[in-house]
Every structure is written in structure tokens, then in C-alpha cells.
């Protein structure tokens, strides 16, 4: 397909990072536009009038929004190589289930564990531990959630591999550790060692500095907003 591909994202966002990774896995050339979220461009607002959020994928002038929807779109449009979703209907349904679970439950629990205090933090941490255990078991000793290759569940779990690690450091807590979740930590290592993944992630030190500096502002928000 010769049509122009543009990605509106932001440096620190795990959501736009997901889309970058998917495009790179597929070998799709695209223009990578990093938005300043304090100062959203007129183009972004034009293409995502409902939510005014990144990421937005522009393909041949048509916008696709919501990171998980974009991932499915990318897989269906560039279906020649590196399948992101399983072809088998049941495996596909399972993958979609885990992706939804990660986005609906895991991300929020991890985020809230890092930004809350006292009793609230204790509850979110308990919740997080429960969810991490489920993910640990779901890996079934495989390198990736997708089996031998990175798939949609791995891409969606990018938050766990980098952002959660940085945030727990900033917050001074230890949720994701090798003692409790050896298979998950191994997944993190495998995921982060992929060249394509490295190219689509922000640098850990820069991310740490970013969250550390904006600790009060960011942690005041109830949900990650990049």
C-alpha cells in the first residue's frame, strides 16, 4: 500500500509506543510526529475531535484512534508479515481478552499503586499482585505472550516492561520483582532486548527523570494521561 502513514504520539506515552512498535514490526514506513501534550496541535484536535488524545494513526489521510484499535487495524491492513494477532479464532479471542484485561485492570492498578498512599495504596498493591500473578501464569513459560514472537498481548503489556518499572522506582515501592514473578521478569528481559522494541521505547533514564520531575503533577491525575 503506497499511502502515507503518520503517527501522532508523544515521547513518554506507552500508548503511542505500542503503535510505533507495531508499525516497525511490520516494516511500515511512517512519519513519527511527537506532540507536546501541553500544547496540542490543531491537526491532532482535527483528527481526534472526540477525545483529542494521542495516539492517532493517519493512513492515506484517514485517522484511526485508540491504541488497541490501531494495533488491530495495522495487523489487518499490513497482513503480509509478522502477524500481531493470532489467526485462529479462539487464540485471537484469548489474545483480545488479555489485551482488554491489561488495559482495563492491570495498567490502572499499577498506576494507582504508584500514585496513591496509605490504605488506598495498600489495596491497589494487593490488586496489582493478583493481576501480575495471572500474567505470570498466562506466559506458561513462553518467551512471549504471543509464544515465540511478539504479539498483541506483548505490545499491550509494554507499560509493564518499562513504565511500571520506572514508576515503582519513583514511588519507592517494589511490585514487579524477580523473586515473585520470575517468568514475567524474564519476559521483560526478552521484550526489552528486542531491537525493534528498543527503537520504539523512550530511554529509561529520560523516563525516570520525566516522572521524577513531574511527580506531583502527574500523580495528581487519576489515570495515565500522556
Amino acid at each position: 500500500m503506497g499511502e502515507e502513514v503518520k503517527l501522532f504520539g508523544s515521547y513518554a506515552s506507552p500508548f503511542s509506543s505500542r503503535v510505533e512498535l507495531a508499525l516497525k514490526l511490520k516494516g511500515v514506513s511512517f512519519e513519527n510526529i511527537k506532540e507536546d501534550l501541553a500544547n496540542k496541535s490543531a491537526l491532532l484536535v482535527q483528527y481526534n475531535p472526540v477525545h483529542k488524545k494521542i495516539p492517532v494513526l493517519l493512513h492515506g489521510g484517514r485517522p484511526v484512534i485508540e491504541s488497541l484499535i490501531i494495533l488491530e487495524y495495522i495487523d489487518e491492513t499490513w497482513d503480509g508479515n509478522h502477524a500481531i494477532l493470532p489467526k485462529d479464532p479462539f487464540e485471537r479471542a484469548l489474545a483480545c481478552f488479555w489485551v482488554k484485561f491489561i488495559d482495563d485492570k492491570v495498567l490502572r492498578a499499577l498506576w494507582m499503586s504508584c500514585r496513591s498512599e496509605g490504605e488506598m495504596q495498600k489495596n491497589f498493591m494487593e490488586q496489582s499482585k493478583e493481576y501480575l500473578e495471572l500474567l505470570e501464569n498466562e506466559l506458561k513459560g513462553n518467551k512471549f505472550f504471543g509464544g515465540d514472537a511478539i504479539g498483541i498481548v506483548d505490545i499491550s503489556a509494554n507499560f509493564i516492561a518499562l513504565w511500571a518499572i520506572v514508576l515503582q522506582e519513583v514511588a519507592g515501592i517494589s511490585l514487579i520483582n524477580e523473586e515473585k514473578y520470575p517468568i514475567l521478569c524474564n519476559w521483560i528481559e526478552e521484550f526489552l532486548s528486542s531491537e525493534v522494541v528498543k527503537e520504539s521505547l523512550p530511554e529509561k533514564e529520560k523516563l525516570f527523570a520525566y516522572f521524577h520531575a513531574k511527580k506531583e503533577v502527574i500523580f495528581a491525575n487519576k489515570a495515565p494521561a500522556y
Partner: protein
Amino acid sequence: MAEEVKLIGLSMSMFVIRVKIALNLKGVKYENLEETFGSKSEVLLKSNPIYKKIPVLIHNGKTICESMIIVQYVDDVWSGAGPSIVPSDPFDAAMARFWSYYIDDKWFPAYGEVMKGQTREAKIEAAKEAIAKLQPLEEVFQKQSKGKDFFGGDTIGYLDIALGCYLGWIKAAEKLTGLEFFDKSETPLLAAWAECFYSNDAVKCIMPDVDEFVEFAIKIQAKLNA
């Protein structure tokens, strides 16, 4: 292979209704395992241990959870039967998924306030909000339907199911507030669509009567206020 299809659900649940419509469109025979409102069966807890929620589809022993994931699964497995549910064009599929998210994440909570409203006045105020949130779908319908009866074109599709499953509940809200959710002058296309959808063969055989929804709404409200 003899197909064994079971559906764990509640006839009043809009999410279960989604799955029933999809199965009907494909002409799939299934065993309906009706849960009792207010309690969860062992089968349900075993087959959906993470969310413990209906609907759950059990197909030849394999369990699939989350209503729109099940709808996609039904479309994939029985792809040769009945109409295609998920649009074949990736962009149209992305649009259908985006607006399906919007309906569940943004519209449904607004609708929920109608049911929670303790007085008729409170219900009316909440209904006005919910009606306003349906407005964007008029334009979506115009674009997606291409002049035909449904979002999916000639036949019921993904977005029709995502929104249409709520029609019984919407009619109940209309009875309780005296307001019209699909005003023939404000949203004429949606008004016509609602009638088409509600009277479709795949829908009317499984959609409970409006009075049943009203009665159920009163039951839920009593439970919420207890």
C-alpha cells in the same frame, strides 16, 4: 464435528443479547444457561474466573468471555454462515470498534445514571445527558450505512449489535422518563435504524418485552437503594 455451543447469561443483559443476536445471525443452535439474578453459578465462576461475569460462550469446551470479543469470535468461526458481522475493510472495522468502545465507555455510564436516578426528575435530567451522548452516532450512521438500513449496510453488523443490544433498556428508560431517545427530527436516521433493528428476526425472538425491562429496572433500583 458435532458443535456444542452453550451460552451462560441472563436474558435481560444487553451484553448477553449481543451474543444471542450474533449467534442468530449465523443460524447457530446453542444451549441457553440462564443465571439467576443476584447470584453466580459454579459454571460461571469456573468459566470466567477473572471477571466472574456474563456472557460466557462455551464452544466445544472452550470458553470465550467479553461480549464484543465473543461477537467477533462467532463471526470468525462461522464465517461461511449468514452475513459478515465485522466489516471486511480494516478502516470500517476500526470505526465500528471505536464507536463500540464509545458506546460502552462513554454512553453507557450516562445511561446508567437514568436507572440510578431516585426521582422522575433526576431520571429525566440524566436521560437528557444520555440522549445528547447519542448525537454523534447520527453522523456515524450516515457514513457507515451508505444509505442502507444498518450501520453494517444491508445487514446487521458489529456496531449495530454494539448499540442495538441496549434498545430494550432504552425503551424502558423512555417509559420511565417520557422522553424519546431517538427523536425523529433530531436524529432521524437513528430513529429509523432503531425500528429496523428492533423488528429484525435475529433480534425480536430474543429481546424481552419493554415491560420486563421496566420491571427489572425497578428491581435493580430497589437493590441499589437497599
